């Protein structure tokens, strides 16, 4: 029914394996795709008051921030719906665990099949929130070594470049309490990961140790500074495109028919903007 489209890699994840009958929103990986950093909110964005996402993914009509009116899709003339999704700390203790897994395997999030999936189109995004997305006490921490989005006033690299002419060779700059500093930079999250949770630690003379951390089948590196975070806030970390929907088969090869029917309705009403879906056993 659909041309080939990017899919998530069905490898072991922090949240375990996909379950039969489940409906999963995917952001697939492709050699032609954009880097994950592109989809990161930097700084992460606080959750609005009154929104309760824990175990409750929600469809949300995208609205114009200025007028407050729903944003209409130019192709379908229907409101664009995004999906707000909570990534729990039970399976991903740190926000970086989810980010790094997504970088390697793409995103795959289970959603309630009762949601009106026909409203989702290629313009829809999944907005992913994590309980430890925002370092509340960031102003007391040194800026991250490098902001991979290269945003001004975010990282040490920026400050070093900016004040280059005022620094003696080999001298560093402490911008911790700079009034103009913007944050919390999302890339600080890697530096505050606990060293004692590393699966391997490699000491480096004159530098912070290089540590490896594992979540599911994903192993990633980080260099902890040893700084302590005294307060966290939940927030949105990622705004990912939805490249398709995976319907996981039961043992008898069938899938959640209600969800499939909704998706077929979506195909009919959204035409070329409809989200592709596929059936798979894992």
């Amino acid at each position, binding site marked *: 029914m659909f041309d080939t*489209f*990017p899919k998530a890699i069905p490898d072991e994840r922090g949240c375990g394996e996909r379950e039969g009958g489940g409906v999963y929103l995917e*952001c*697939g*990986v*492709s*050699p*032609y*795709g*954009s*880097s*994950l*950093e*592109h*989809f990161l*909110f930097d700084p992460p*964005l*606080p*959750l*609005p*008051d*009154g*929104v*309760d996402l824990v175990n409750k993914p929600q469809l*949300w009509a*995208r*609205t*114009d*921030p200025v007028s*407050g009116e729903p*944003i209409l899709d130019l192709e379908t003339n229907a409101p664009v719906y*995004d999906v707000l999704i909570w990534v729990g700390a039970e399976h991903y203790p740190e926000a970086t665990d989810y980010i790094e897994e*997504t*970088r*390697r395997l*793409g*995103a795959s999030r289970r959603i309630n099949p009762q949601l009106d999936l026909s409203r989702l189109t*290629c*313009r829809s*995004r999944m*907005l992913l929130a994590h309980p430890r997305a925002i370092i509340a006490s960031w102003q007391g921490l040194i800026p991250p070594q490098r902001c*991979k*989005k*290269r945003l001004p006033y975010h990282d040490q690299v920026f400050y070093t470049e900016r004040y280059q002419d005022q620094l003696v060779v080999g001298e560093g700059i402490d911008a911790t309490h700079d009034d103009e500093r913007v944050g919390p930079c999302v890339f600080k999250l890697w530096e505050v990961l606990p060293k004692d949770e590393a*699966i*391997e630690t*490699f000491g480096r003379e004159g530098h912070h140790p*290089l540590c*490896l951390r594992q979540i599911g089948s994903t*192993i*990633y*590196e980080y260099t902890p500074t040893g700084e302590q975070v005294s307060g966290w806030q939940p927030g*949105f970390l990622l*705004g*990912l*495109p939805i*490249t*398709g929907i995976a319907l996981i088969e039961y043992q008898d090869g069938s899938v959640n028919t209600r969800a499939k029917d909704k998706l077929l309705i979506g195909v009919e009403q959204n035409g070329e903007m409809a989200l*592709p879906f596929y059936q798979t056993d894992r």
Partner: protein
Amino acid sequence: MVKGRESKADSCKNTQKRGKIVMPRATKQPTLFQEGEIAALDPRLARLMQICGIEHLPPVHTRHIPIEKIVVPGEAQVMPSPRFIRSIELVGIRQPPSVAFDGGSAWNAPDATYVVVMGRRRIVSARQLMAARGDARFKTIKCEVYEWNAPRLNAFLGLVENEQRSQSWVTDVVRLRQLIREGIAMTLDDLKSYGFHAKTIKGRLDIALLPNAILDQICAGMVSLDVAMQVLRLKEDQLHRLETLVQDGEEVTADLVKSLLKRQVNQGLASVQTNLSQMWTAIPGTALDAASTSLSSPTIQVLSSASNEPASLATVLALLKQFEVQTQHDLALQRVGTLTKVLIKELEIALHTPSMTKKEGETTDV
């Protein structure tokens, strides 16, 4: 409506045999209903009694019963919470449990035993306090005693009691409102120590602190608990808006609260929307094809097509992969092997990460 107390019924003889419900014929007894009420019995109650297999409701008396004479069905499964026991220990049993005559020569004979109809947790708590602390207050328990046992009716009454309990949140709010108005200084910790469930009582207290116009409707029973809890999610602006609407005669409905919550969340999501729109315009190319809006793949299969990448990087990657296989067979290289795997992944990502066009048109490598 419970009527009748220990009086004339004291002289009644038990006519019930164990295991079989036999209706006593005595007429002048205190009963669950007055005679007039029974005469004008609601057909639904008549139907209930028919289902329960009884002709009339058992007479009821208030008595002090030795605790060892009271049987709690499935006692091993009855587990009152520590806070419930704490509450019983603090204030005693303020509401008499209901028990039904279960065995012995007569319902009021010294050898009579009783089965609990309502108040299993109260009896079990009292028994535990007796056993653990020898608390003499619980040697006898003031009970409402049914002259005979009707198990089906007991089950029904238990259900009613639980249902009533779930509906009592409005009463809780009314009482808390009264305490607040009277300026009673009590903290949440106080309430917790008196046996209240911290989360539940905090919810009730938060409701009792809502603006008067909204609270009036809640106390009048016009608002469901679900909706009241949703109201608590409203922040100052939207709560004030709701208050104004209610003062203008609107009812606090689920739809109204939902619309205000939606407005509140939309306002909160404004920054997300702004960021999203910036992200969208920053994606290279404007076409909305699935591949360009996906994540960059770290897979190695496309390595061969990456001919424009520096050859040395691809060579390093190939070499690392070869070396990683080697490390799998050498225990001494285990740590190096793990590091090599990570390095391979990072190189794969680096090889297939396209340059990103920033909003200002500046090109940067990521």
